[in-house]
Structures are given as structure tokens and as C-alpha cells.
């Protein structure tokens, strides 16, 4: 597609891409190539025995199949539950909407240890719902929906509320039914965001680790879990390398398919405008809103409520002892950092990781949004590959790849860098569609009215870019705050983050330890919800995309 107003020369695009690509080469491709290479040619000779071992092992084939189908089921379930919620939050104004929106983001940033514990409380032996769902696929899928709900609501909702509702109204005036107007007008405009959210959800569930490990019981393992076992527990690098390649191939194939869909269905620039929310009018609308809020309350609220409840639990009933204990650093030991310290560590890491991810991802998104053709699509897909790579592969890759020329392995920067590698694809995913959807005609109009290209960019692109940056930054911040996988696999300096502190507390006996862990989880939850609300307020009301990631 031709974009006269926005085409940058190929050289400028290359310049924009240089840094993000260099970053990913050094902190992703090189470590992964190193560890996979170590597995495939340990003694300097190519040794492909791992391939035979993997393909010939029915257990491993079973793992691959389970990984695939549970991800597909989880993705569909997430879309079914989250798309109506995205509609309600994007289109209706109601009391407490902002708080609901902020709370709906929380599950995404909670560390898996905490979510696992909450779901065990909800679906365990003494389940308040009366169902023992441990070890079932249903529990895994429910937890996946809980986790990824925000991805869909935020990605799709951000675009949805910026769409002009009048186009749909025009269609209805012309005689289309509500459903038909939605299908013919709104759905095509939303499609890029839906595809994007579905792909991210699929990648997330395809590479699911903590949820499957905790809730899946011994009978269910994903490739990610198996790669972890083969690498960290058994140091069986030949098999681990083959599995890592297999996972990478599967993810690559998915991305190629998605790029093809996008090429065929690329929508023209959709005009975004300030969000218009209406109060519910008809009884049908009221029921729709109430129904959706009820689903949110059950699916997202119940596990979160379980967490808070458990932070107040004592041996005899309920009390504040867990919270009080948080204030006292037990015995001045190095294990029990004060929660304040863990919170500060978490925030520090999150700020650095966010900065890295947004700057690098923003550059990449700017280049991708303006570029067309095969190369752009290829790069787009390549930037998503870190999502398809197991944290343990990257973490162990760091160990053997980053000791020269400077030994970075013990550096405190490694954790935020690893988190930035994880967050980068999300930033690119979030920013590219918004940047792409900027109507070139606006820019042309500005140029025609005599604005210089710089001014055109400043006054047309910048407000929308600013939103996209904020949306992406919140995404990256949230990922970094809750990130647990990469943080634990990398040997790191002793600066425990909140998720790490929670895991340590949960890992030892004694009632005070578990209530403290849940109190810390509650703090993490409040912190995230608070940050989301704050950014929302600071950015001002009623700009398009205010139910986007911030």
C-alpha cells in the first residue's frame, strides 16, 4: 500500500532498526545460538542424536501435541470471554469503570506462583466453589483465561473505543441489524487488534510454564516445562536444544501464517477519534453490561479475592499478623528483605526494562509502521521470536555467551535486560498497529495547509504516538513488575524483586510466611492497579485509547 505522506526512505528505516536489531542480536540471538549450538555440537562435532531421541520418544511427542491443543483452546476461550468485556469497557460509561479497568489489568502482572496459589485455593481440596479441579486441563485453561484476559481487553479495547461509533450507526440507519452492522463495519476495523491479541495469547499459552507446572499436576507438561527440565534439572542439552528449536519453529510458523493473514486483510487507515462512551439505555444493554461485569467478577475477582483473604488468615481465624510481620525484617537475615526493599528493587528493574523496551521497541515500531512488503513482515515476525523462546534457554544462553568481551553475567543489569527482551515484542505489537492506523490523509491535509513535515508530525502523529508510547510503556512495566521466569533462571545479584520475595516466602513452612507472601501479593496487586489508574489520570480523560494498556 502506498503511503505518500509517511514514507520514510529505506535508509532511515534501516537506521531506526539498527539499535533494536543489535540489541536482540546480542541479548537474544547470540545467547540462544550459543546454548543450542552447545547442545548440538558439544565436542566440536555436530551431534544430531537429540533429534532422533526427541522424535522417537512418544512421551515427548505427547508433550508437543498437548502444548499445541491446550494453547488453541486457551486462546479461543480467552477471546470468547474477553471480547465482550472489551466492548463494554470501550463503549459504556458507568460508575467505577476506571477501577474495573485498572483491576482487570492486575492478573496479567501477578507472578505465576501467586496465581497458582490463588487457583489452588479456589479449585483445591477445600474449594469454596466445591470443585476439585487440580491437575485438570480445565484448571489450566481457566488460569490462562485469567492471565491473558487483559491482553485482549487492552489491545482490542484500545482500538475499539477510538473507532467512530457513527459509522456503525450509519449502517444501522441504512437498515442493518445490530449484529450485521458490527460484522460489516466494526469487526473489520478491529481485526488487526484481534489477530494481534490472539497471537500474543497463543504465544503466551503455548509457552506457558508456571501455570502448567503448578496446576497441571504431573500428567501435563508443555514444551516449555520439558525444556526447563531437560536444561536446568538434567543438563541434557542435546534434547533441550532440539526441543527449543522445535518450539521456535512452531512459533515461527504461527508468525508466518499471521503475516499472511495480515497481508491479505490489511485495513486502510482507520480514523481514530476521542472515545465516546454512552450510558446504558435499553434493558438489553443493561443486561449485557451486568452480565459482563458478573463474568469479570467471577473470573478475575474470585482468585484475587482469595489472595486478599489469605493475607489476613491466621491459624485461628483472621487477623493482621501477616501484614504486621511484613514491617519487621525477621532477624536481619539476608533472606527476608523488607518488603519496601523488594518493592523498590522491582520498581527499579521495571523502570530500566520499560525504558529499554519502549525506546528500542518504539524505534522498531516506527520503522515497521512505515515499511511495507516482505522485509517488513519478516522483521515484524522476527521481533516476536523472543516470546516463543523458553526463558531457561535464554538464561542459560546468557551464561555461556555473555562472558566476553566484558563479563556481564553477574551484572545487576542483566535482569532488566532479560525483561526488556521479553517485553520488546509486546511494545512492537502494541505500537505498530496504532502507528499504522494514523490516517495519512491527516498528514497530507496538514501539508496542504502549509505545515512543514516536522510540524505535521508534531501535531498529527505525536498525540497519537504519545498514546501509543504510554500504552506500550504500561505494557512493558507490567511485564517487568510481574516477571518471574527469566528473573529466576538468570543467576542474579542479590536484589530480590517482589515476585522473587513472594516465591521465597511461599517456599517455606510456617503460617506467617504464607500470610506474608499473600500480603506481598496484595501489595503488588494494589501497586499495579494504582499505577494504571495514575497514568490514566495523568494522561487526561477521553483521549482515544484510554482503555488501552494504560
Amino acid at each position, binding site marked *: 500500500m502506498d503511503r505518500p505522506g509517511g514514507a*520514510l*526512505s529505506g535508509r*532511515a528505516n534501516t*537506521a531506526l532498526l539498527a539499535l533494536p536489531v543489535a540489541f536482540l542480536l546480542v541479548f537474544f540471538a547470540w545467547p540462544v545460538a550459543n546454548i543450542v549450538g552447545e547442545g548440538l555440537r558439544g565436542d566440536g562435532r555436530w551431534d544430531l542424536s537429540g533429534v532422533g531421541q526427541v522424535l522417537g520418544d512418544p512421551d515427548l511427542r505427547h508433550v508437543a501435541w498437548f502444548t499445541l491443543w491446550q494453547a488453541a483452546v486457551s486462546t479461543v476461550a480467552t477471546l470468547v470471554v474477553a471480547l465482550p468485556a472489551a466492548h463494554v469497557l470501550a463503549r459504556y460509561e458507568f460508575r467505577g469503570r476506571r477501577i474495573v479497568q485498572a483491576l482487570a489489568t492486575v492478573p496479567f502482572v501477578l507472578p505465576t506462583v501467586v496465581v497458582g496459589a490463588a487457583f*489452588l485455593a479456589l479449585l*483445591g*481440596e477445600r474449594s469454596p466453589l466445591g470443585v476439585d479441579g487440580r491437575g485438570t486441563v480445565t484448571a489450566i485453561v481457566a488460569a490462562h483465561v485469567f492471565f491473558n484476559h487483559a491482553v485482549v481487553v487492552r489491545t482490542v479495547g484500545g482500538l475499539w473505543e477510538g473507532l467512530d461509533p457513527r459509522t456503525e450507526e450509519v449502517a444501522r440507519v441504512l437498515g442493518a441489524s445490530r449484529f450485521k452492522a458490527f460484522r460489516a463495519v466494526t469487526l473489520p476495523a478491529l481485526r488487526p487488534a484481534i489477530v494481534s491479541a490472539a497471537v500474543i495469547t497463543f504465544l503466551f499459552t503455548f509457552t506457558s510454564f508456571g501455570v502448567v*507446572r*503448578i496446576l*497441571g*499436576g*504431573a*500428567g501435563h507438561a508443555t514444551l516449555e516445562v520439558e525444556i526447563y*527440565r531437560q536444561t*536446568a*534439572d538434567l*543438563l541434557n542439552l542435546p534434547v533441550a536444544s532440539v526441543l527449543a528449536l522445535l518450539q521456535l519453529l512452531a512459533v515461527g510458523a504461527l508468525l508466518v501464517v499471521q503475516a499472511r493473514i495480515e497481508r491479505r486483510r490489511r485495513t486502510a487507515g482507520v480514523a481514530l477519534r476521542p472515545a465516546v462512551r454512552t450510558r446504558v439505555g435499553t434493558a438489553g444493554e443493561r443486561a449485557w453490561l451486568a452480565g459482563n461485569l458478573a463474568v469479570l467478577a467471577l473470573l478475575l475477582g474470585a482468585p484475587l479475592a482469595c489472595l486478599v483473604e*489469605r493475607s489476613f488468615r*491466621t*491459624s485461628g481465624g483472621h487477623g493482621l499478623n*501477616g501484614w504486621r510481620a511484613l514491617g519487621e525484617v525477621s532477624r*536481619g*537475615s*539476608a*533472606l527476608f528483605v523488607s518488603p519496601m526493599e523488594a518493592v523498590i528493587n522491582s520498581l527499579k528493574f521495571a523502570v*530500566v526494562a520499560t525504558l529499554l523496551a519502549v*525506546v*528500542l521497541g518504539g*524505534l522498531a515500531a516506527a520503522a515497521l509502521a512505515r515499511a511495507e512488503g516482505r522485509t517488513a513482515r519478516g522483521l515484524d515476525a522476527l521481533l516476536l521470536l523472543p516470546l516463543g523462546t523458553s526463558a531457561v534457554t535464554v538464561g*542459560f544462553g546468557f*551464561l*555461556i555467551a555473555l*562472558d566476553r568481551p*566484558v*563479563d556481564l*553475567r*553477574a*551484572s*545487576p*543489569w542483566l535482569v532488566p535486560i532479560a525483561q526488556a527482551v521479553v517485553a520488546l515484542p509486546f511494545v512492537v505489537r502494541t505500537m505498530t498497529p496504532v502507528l499504522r492506523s494514523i490516517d495519512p490523509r491527516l498528514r497530507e491535509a496538514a501539508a496542504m495547509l502549509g505545515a*512543514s*513535515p*516536522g510540524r*505535521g*508530525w508534531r501535531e498529527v502523529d505525536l498525540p497519537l504516538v504519545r498514546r501509543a508510547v504510554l500504552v506500550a510503556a504500561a505494557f512493558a512495566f507490567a511485564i517487568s513488575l510481574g516477571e518471574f521466569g527469566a528473573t*529466576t533462571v538468570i*543467576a*542474579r545479584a*542479590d536484589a530480590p524483586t517482589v515476585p522473587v520475595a513472594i*516465591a521465597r516466602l*511461599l*517456599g*517455606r*513452612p*510456617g*503460617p*506467617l*510466611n*504464607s*500470610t506474608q507472601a499473600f500480603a506481598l501479593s496484595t501489595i503488588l496487586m494494589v501497586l499495579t492497579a494504582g499505577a494504571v489508574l495514575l497514568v490514566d489520570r495523568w494522561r487526561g480523560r477521553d483521549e482515544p485509547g484510554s482503555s488501552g494498556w494504560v
Partner: protein
Amino acid sequence: MNRSHLRRAGLLLAPIVLLAAACGDTTETVDPADPGPSTDPVTLTLLTHDSFAVSDDVLAAFTEATGITVKLLRGGDAGTVVNQAILTKGAPQADVLFGIDSTFLSRALDEELFVPYEAAGSEDVPEELVLDSEHRVTSIDYGDVCLNYDKAYFADAGVTVPATLEDLLDPEYDDLLVVQNPATSSSGLAFLFATIAEFGEDGWEAYWQGLVDNGVEVTEGWEEAYYGSFSGGGTSEGTRPLVVSYASSPPAEVVFADPPVEEAPTGVIDASCYRQIEGAGILAGTDHEAEAGQLIDFLLSVPFQEDMPLSMFVFPVNPQASLPKVFLDNTSVPTNGYELPTAEIDAHREEWIDTWTDLVVR
């Protein structure tokens, strides 16, 4: 427009450049490849697992006495840490490793991961607690994995507490036991080793078949078993009164009780314990071998040894270190824990886990 865009990009890049510069700074001070004159204060890096803990004042006293600063590097669980060290052999990321046990010892020794060092006081360590007679690894603590039971359950139900592993097959105890998956949990693996040590290579599979028939529950990790399925702990959610945990869990129930309690609600079944000895070693390739030796001495010294029970909930190997009262009151110091030869573990671990998985969870 191009220029304004790029200038903006330049502004955005400034933090990265700063960051890169900062990276250089921080790594310089810890770079083990930079020996520096020996009179300078030395910083040692101690690679360890997530459960490592020491009281601040105890560690500070070491730094004051020796001038050596200790920097902790955590690498995940014990197995992951050892595997990381094997992977970085020759270019170690730390000077000393703490947290190697018999499960991974044989592999680490085969890989020649450690430099031999005879620590001050190591001659006093009881022989049954010595991990390596050639002093490549120095034993520091032991923390046995034992069955814990819910005292109230057995008192209320009027059932005797099982005394041996064999007892667990009794129909009287059906649906009462929860264990961890040995593929994903170190305590689960230790319990599997205990059953192999008791029933032998030929008998353990039949024993586990018996446990399955008697309704054993399997969880992935210790947390899920102890908090989710076990009934005995202070905030335990479950209904099963028997769990695979540690000899030190009952004292922990008292130390972290809420509100305070006099006596632990749980007890240890003595004849079910698997011995887990943890050691430390100087990583080959370190530039601070002499100082690393001082750190090993410290780990074996009375102040550190007496700090361990309440910070890591393990038992000291140094016979001069005394145990805190809460340990003496609420658990027995395990004496005859099951053990398997480390070479045998290394040769069969994967095969045992695979067999167990087929038998119990598939």
C-alpha cells in the same frame, strides 16, 4: 522530517548509552578476570540457591575480620545452580559455590568443578556427614527430608501414626499421604531415594504401586503439597495428614506461628528421613583461591553454623554448634537417615524418575 525523527531517536537513545556506560562500571568491580593487587579489599562472589540465607550481622563480622566482601549470586534451585556452574566451567561466574548435595555431587566431581581445600574444623565433622573425603566439597549442613504428620488428626481419629515407610501401605492410611513429583521437586526426589534405599532396586516399584493403590496424591512442588493438600500446617488448606517435608518443618511452624504457639502442630516420622547433606566448594578458575578458602572456613565456623538453623532451617555439621531450643523441643535431630551412594544416583536418576512417572502419574 527525517531529521527531526532521528534527532528525537537520538534523545531517546541517550539513556541506553548511559546504561551501557553504567553496565561497564558495575561489571568492572566484580569482574573475576581482574585479579588486582592482593592487598586491595577482595570481593568474593558466592553462587548459591534461592534458599540460602545468613543473618546480616554474622556476615558483617566475617567482612570485618577478613576484609573480604561477599556478594551473593542466586541461580535458582540447587540443581540449576550446579548445572549453571558446570556450563560455565573454566570461566566461572563466582568464586565459591554453596548448596551442592549428594544428588548432583558425582556429576560435579566428574566435571572437576572444584579445587580441593581442607577447611579449618573439617576434621571435626562426623564421618557420616562428610560428602567428599578428598575435600573438593566441604560439608556445611544437613537438612533431612522426612514425612511430617498432623498431630491433631491422628489424636482425634485415634489412629496410630505410621512408624515406617512400610506402614504407609496399610489400608488404615489410605488417602492420607501427599508427596511431590520427583521430576520437579527436590523433596519429592529425596523421598523417592528414601524408598529406593529402603526397598532396593528391585522392590521400590512394587512399593510405589502399593502407595498408588492406597491413594497417594502427587503435587508438583513442595508449596502445593504443604499448603494445598496437607492438613497439619498453621495455614494449610488440605485434608491429608501426611506429607513429605523436612525435619525442620515443625520448628518452623513454631517460629512462624501466628498467633504464637508453644508446640508445633506437626511432627516428624523418624524412620522416613532421607539424608540431604549440603556442601560448599571453591570453583576451579577463581582468582581468589586463598580468600575463597577463608570463606569456606567461615561457613564451617560456629557463628555461621549456629545461625543456619533459624535462617535456613537446616542442621549444622559442626559438632561444636548448638541447636536453638525450638529445634530441640520440636524435632528430633535425625540420626539414621536413608542414603544412596552419589555415583548410583548419578547413574540412575533419570531412569528412576522416568520409571516413577510411568508408574505413578501416567
